[in-house]
């Protein structure tokens, strides 16, 4: 576990974020991916690290299990995506190969003595991950700038390699005796690196390319799904109801709104903030009545727990319904504004308007659902209308934090 704590340090400069286990792209429990995201490293490196630690005394398995338990699963909607079994098999194969190697060379008998090896290996992996083609070019050209940004991580990698090597030798108690052997080992490793580096670099590059391609394909699939599910569907519907212009307009508007939301609006929880809730109500009433409702929002606030904004939203919905049903105006303008602790919603139409005093007392729409409701919750509602001049309903509510 100590190893992971050290590894977690470089992430410290970023704002603290709790580690989660993503469902998408997980191989086992998503722990390696979550950790990778947390440390801004490649998941492959983390996975190899776990494999290495598993082989070397089983610490990896314990660490994995512990992390699995403490890291919450990332929320994911729909059926969990299938795992990439081929990758899992590949990592298992690496583990088995390492185990066999350890057993053959007798290194595994060293038990705890293998740990330094593992630490060294992890360090090397981190170093390797740093060395993507562009960064390597940066190194060659002597541009120290690119390294400076990741100096901490690079330093950590180097330190781990050195500590691993020294620790191993110290554990074996032959640090002094190993000096000539160390030299030759260094030469051999150097030689192997020189031989294998271009090939490994090529492999790495290919892997990156492949991943980018996969991401692109996933994006395209998402767009295709969106177009298919909504746009094509709506176009078909429009052809079928072509004789009913009202319905055609309604369908087209609904589809336009959907597409706009998807393209331009951040994903919002419609019940969390005032602006999102107003947009949703407008969309629902637009759908129900086939009248275009244009919404403009300035500022935003969370829906209060006291239910005052909820009451205001209900009143605004009633105002929209009235305008859509009775005003005969082709469009309705809704403007929601939050300034300081005051929320205001305007609902305006350019329809035929009416005489407010002539509205019979038993008509619940305006008097009860709008004015009464606002006043009961400590807000105010004003209605401005005149026959032929359209109608504007103005709702104001003060939200004091309590």
């Amino acid at each position, binding site marked *: 576990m100590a190893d992971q704590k050290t590894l977690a340090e470089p992430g410290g400069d970023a704002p603290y974020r709790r580690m989660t286990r993503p469902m998408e792209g997980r191989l086992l429990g998503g722990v390696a991916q979550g950790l990778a995201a947390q440390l801004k490293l490649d998941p492959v490196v983390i996975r190899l690290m776990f494999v290495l630690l598993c082989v070397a005394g089983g610490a990896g398995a314990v660490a994995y299990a512990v992390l699995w338990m403490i890291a919450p699963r990332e929320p994911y909607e729909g059926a969990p995506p299938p795992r990439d079994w081929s990758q899992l098999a590949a990592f298992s194969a690496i583990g088995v190969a390492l185990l066999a190697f350890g057993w053959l060379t007798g290194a595994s008998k060293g038990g705890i003595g293998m740990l330094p090896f593992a630490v060294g290996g992890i360090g090397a992996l981190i170093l390797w991950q740093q060395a993507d083609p562009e960064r390597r070019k940066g190194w060659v050209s002597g541009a120290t700038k690119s390294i400076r940004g990741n100096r901490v991580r690079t330093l950590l990698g180097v330190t781990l390699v050195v500590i691993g090597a020294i620790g191993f030798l110290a554990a074996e108690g032959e640090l002094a005796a190993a000096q000539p052997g160390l030299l030759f080992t260094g030469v051999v490793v150097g030689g192997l690196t020189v031989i294998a580096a271009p090939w490994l670099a090529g492999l790495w590059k290919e892997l990156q390319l492949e991943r980018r391609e996969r991401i692109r394909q996933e994006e395209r699939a998402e767009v295709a799904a969106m177009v298919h599910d909504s746009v094509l569907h709506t176009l078909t519907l429009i052809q079928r109801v072509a004789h009913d212009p009202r319905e055609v307009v309604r369908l087209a508007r609904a589809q336009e709104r959907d597409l*706009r939301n998807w*393209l*331009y609006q*951040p994903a919002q929880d419609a019940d969390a903030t005032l602006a999102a809730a107003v947009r949703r109500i407008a969309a629902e009433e637009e759908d129900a009545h086939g009248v*275009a409702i*244009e919404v*403009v*929002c*300035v*500022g935003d606030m969370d829906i209060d727990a006291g239910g005052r904004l909820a009451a205001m939203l209900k009143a605004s919905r009633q105002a929209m319904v009235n305008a859509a049903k009775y005003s005969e105006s082709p*469009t309705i*303008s809704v*403007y929601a*504004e939050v*300034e300081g602790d005051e929320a205001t919603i*305007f609902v*305006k139409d*350019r329809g035929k308007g009416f005489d407010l005093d002539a509205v019979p007392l038993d008509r619940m729409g305006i008097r009860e659902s709008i004015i009464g409701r606002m006043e009961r919750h400590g807000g105010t509602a004003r209605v401005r209308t005149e026959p032929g001049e359209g109608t*504007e309903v103005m709702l104001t509510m003060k939200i004091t934090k309590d």
Partner: protein
Amino acid sequence: MTRVLIVDDHRLFRSGVRAELGDSIQVVGEAEDVETAVKAIAELQPDVVLLDVHMPGGGGQEVLRRVLGSGSQVRFLALSVSDAAEDVIGVIRGGARGYVTKNISGRELTDAIRRVADGDAVFSPRLAGFVLDAFASSEAPSIDPELDSLTQREREVLRLIARGYAYKEIAKELFISVKTVETHVSSVLRKLQLSNRHELSRWATARRLV
């Protein structure tokens, strides 16, 4: 008679606009991308260019950069299906004198063109909302207080536009003349184009990431 050039990459849309515009407007030409637009503007010298924001070859902003960069006095009215903040703020800061969305009615569009031709600015409710939002927060120290904030009156005018009021209705509401309303809107446009408020640029892009 106002002479107008329509720049849009959708032929159907161009002919639609042509049919909808009132008698006081004369469409002198059409262009379908940045290259043809720049050439047509130089040749025809229209009073107003109806400019689509998204087009092949760099979009409306590229047209603005090349035409206004060469010192031309042609006036632009941006017309787009997009109501994304960075598009709207982008073309306005690029030099367009107004922004309307394509679902605008023919009568309103005619009105908007006439207004731009007269040197005034045209704000859609949504653009007014964007501006109110962008000038609302006051965390950053302002470099030029005159440019970096709106006057109370300008705020009132913008708020009424956002509420769906026409200029005439705003004038009646605030007991001022339509000309004064236009002056206020033009002044807001100038601030929008010249202000260095970093909220303006940052906000427009951040809006998508939030």
